[in-house]
């Protein structure tokens, strides 16, 4: 178990590191997008490459952060029934979900995106818009995003089993969406007051 937990910690650190840094891409995307509009109006110039860059950046942000979001237990659930179960049952639901809902999907996606990306890379596929960006990096982002998610899935399964066996503390105790809203509200209020 120790070895597995070490593996899990390694994966967690990787996801966290990537998840934190990619959020800056959103700021870059905002600046690019605002710049596009202004330059088009003022200089009457427009470039498809810069227009495409907006969503390349955003795509990288949300795809590469998905693993971190999973780690933080932030992918939203419908907790109306889930919230009524005991914590033990919730753990089982999570574990079964990781094993039979999450993993098959992300592994299938990794399996499909490898040839899909490779093909685009080898053919040097360009954008369908004239003057647009080369396509394979965007497809590679999807591949990397699903791969990270698969890794994070493994880490979550390890942690879930460890938690259920009592080998570790639960890092994400259950908080219902409404309790979460109240907590967020409180935090925000604190900040406004200060």
């Amino acid at each position, binding site marked *: 178990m120790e070895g597995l937990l070490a593996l899990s910690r390694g994966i967690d650190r990787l996801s966290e590191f990537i998840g934190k840094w990619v959020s800056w891409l959103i700021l870059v995307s*905002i600046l690019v997008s605002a710049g596009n509009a202004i330059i088009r109006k003022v200089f009457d110039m427009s470039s498809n490459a810069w227009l495409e860059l907006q969503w390349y950046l955003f795509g990288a942000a949300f795809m590469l952060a998905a693993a971190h979001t999973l780690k933080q237990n*932030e992918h939203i659930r419908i907790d109306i029934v889930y919230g009524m179960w005991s914590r033990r049952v919730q753990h089982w639901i999570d574990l079964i979900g990781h094993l039979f809902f999450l993993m098959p999907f992300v592994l299938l996606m990794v399996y*499909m995106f490898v040839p899909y990306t490779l093909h685009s890379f080898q053919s040097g596929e360009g954008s369908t818009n004239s003057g647009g960006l080369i396509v394979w990096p965007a497809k590679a982002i999807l591949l990397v995003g699903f791969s990270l998610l698969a890794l994070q899935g493994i880490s979550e399964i390890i942690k879930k089993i460890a938690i259920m066996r009592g080998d570790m503390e639960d890092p994400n105790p259950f908080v219902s969406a409404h309790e979460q809203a109240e907590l967020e*509200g409180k935090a925000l209020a604190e900040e406004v007051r200060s």
Partner: protein
Amino acid sequence: MIAFIAQNMAPIMFASLIVFLLFGYPVAFSLAATGLAFFALGVELAPFSGGSINLSWPLLWALPENFYGNRVMSNDVLLAIPFFTFMGIVLERSGMAEDLLDTVGQLFGPIRGGLAYAVIFVGALLAATTGVVAASVIAMGLISLPIMLRYGYDRRVASGVIAASGTLAQIIPPSLVLIVLADQLGRSVGDMYAGAMIPGLVLTGLYMLYILTMSIIRPNSMPALPEEARTLGKGVLSLIAALLAAGVIGYAAYRYLEPAHGANADILAGSFAVIVIYIFAVADKTFGFNAMSRLAQQVVIVLIPPLALIFLVLGTIFLGIATPTEGGAMGAVGALIMAGFKRRLTLDVIKQALTSTTRLSSFVLFILIGARVFSLTFYGVNGHLWVEHLLVSLPGGELGFLIVVNILVFVLAFFLDFFELAFIIVPLLAPAADKLGIDLVWFGVLLGVNMQTSFMHPPFGFALFYLRSVAARVPYLDRITGKQIAPVTTGQIYWGAVPFVCIQVLMIGLTIAFPQMVMHYKGKTVDPSTIEIQVPELPGMGLSPLGAPDGGSTPTQPAGTDLSQPPNFGGDQPAQPAPSTPDLSKPPSFN
């Protein structure tokens, strides 16, 4: 048995989805897993289905293209989600809402129910900069609620008006709900904004009307601010004079600009007048001319930043300068600049805003990804035909359909948030609505008002929880009067919301009864000259004034239905929707 399952795959699949979602595993992956499981089942059972299942393994390879393509990743419209989210978070840290509530509260305070009007007015104004329900409700709960309690407002009225005004962010453009709905309905965001504008303002008016009525029926439930609480003094006349002056300047500018700029002259002239009056107020304050009263000065100065942001976000869209996505980006930059000027912009604020934005984008886009997997299979088992058949055969035709769908969404919104509704339910409803000849922008606005209601509907509404988090739970000593103030109970918050939920239902009815409120988006006055000028300026942009599909940024359409043509309403269909209508351009304070 096998044949029965094979021929009824669609209902079985949908029922399974509901069960799986209720288990409580994250929605995104439950959707994807249901889609994949039924894909495999469908391929196996296809021979027994009598042709109702069109699935085969090679079809699965549509998924990568599906995610990369312009429904998910290369989708310009959805880019607006992070932009507006980021803008909203930066704004909530900038203290703009607090300044507005303070000043507008002083302006309206002296009349009966004044603080309630101020909350509604500020709620609408914040909603028009960008929509974050949590931020609005919390600001109001912190600033306005204690003042209302101090001077003896009825607790239910006070909490109800705050929760409801905060949710205006959901329906007044630019709001994420409208963007996501436009995307899923295959309509342009610009049209959706134009369509939602009047209903949003009417709704704001209805809230005010309710307060007016209550202030007549039960005057004690909302007293005016006493003399000693009016810290900015008097001087409303001065403000009226300033507004009149701005109006005159604006009108003069309009007459001057109209020959050259046509339909856009109103927005430009309005902006010009606002700038002039702002410079005047700042100069008056800085150099101490005392030409304006302090109240007038302060009102003008705090109102300008939000008005400028509204111009950046909405004005640029209606002028045809920016796409709605770029409008969001400009608004985000504007919010950063404003927070910078107020010395509220730190690296920490930016980091936090980016982290929250990334988290939200990630879970929202993954719900969309999951929904794409689900719908690949669902269409393959003719699920769309099943739903369409179910909905089109409802009694009562168009009206029956709208009533049933609205009740359905109203109930579902207790459990699902608007992203889930928009990605899972709306694509199923849209083809049926289209088939019945319902204009999808009108339909979208209706759904928008409906989903807004779920934010204030006890006991699930999120606005109520945000208010609960800032309203006092224990008795406290008021800072100013030194009197003991009783806490606000959860029951009072719930009951306070009830009249506003009723207003919402009334509003849904009004929107169904008077589609013209939305339909004006098609444009009464089409000025060919402006359209010809604008088209070359927007190469490759999805939301050109023509609304024409093009490039990689075409608004998406539910597969299998051609939604690219607006349904024909009446005989003469206008050739193009005009980019703007006159009413939308004027900042609220000038009306």
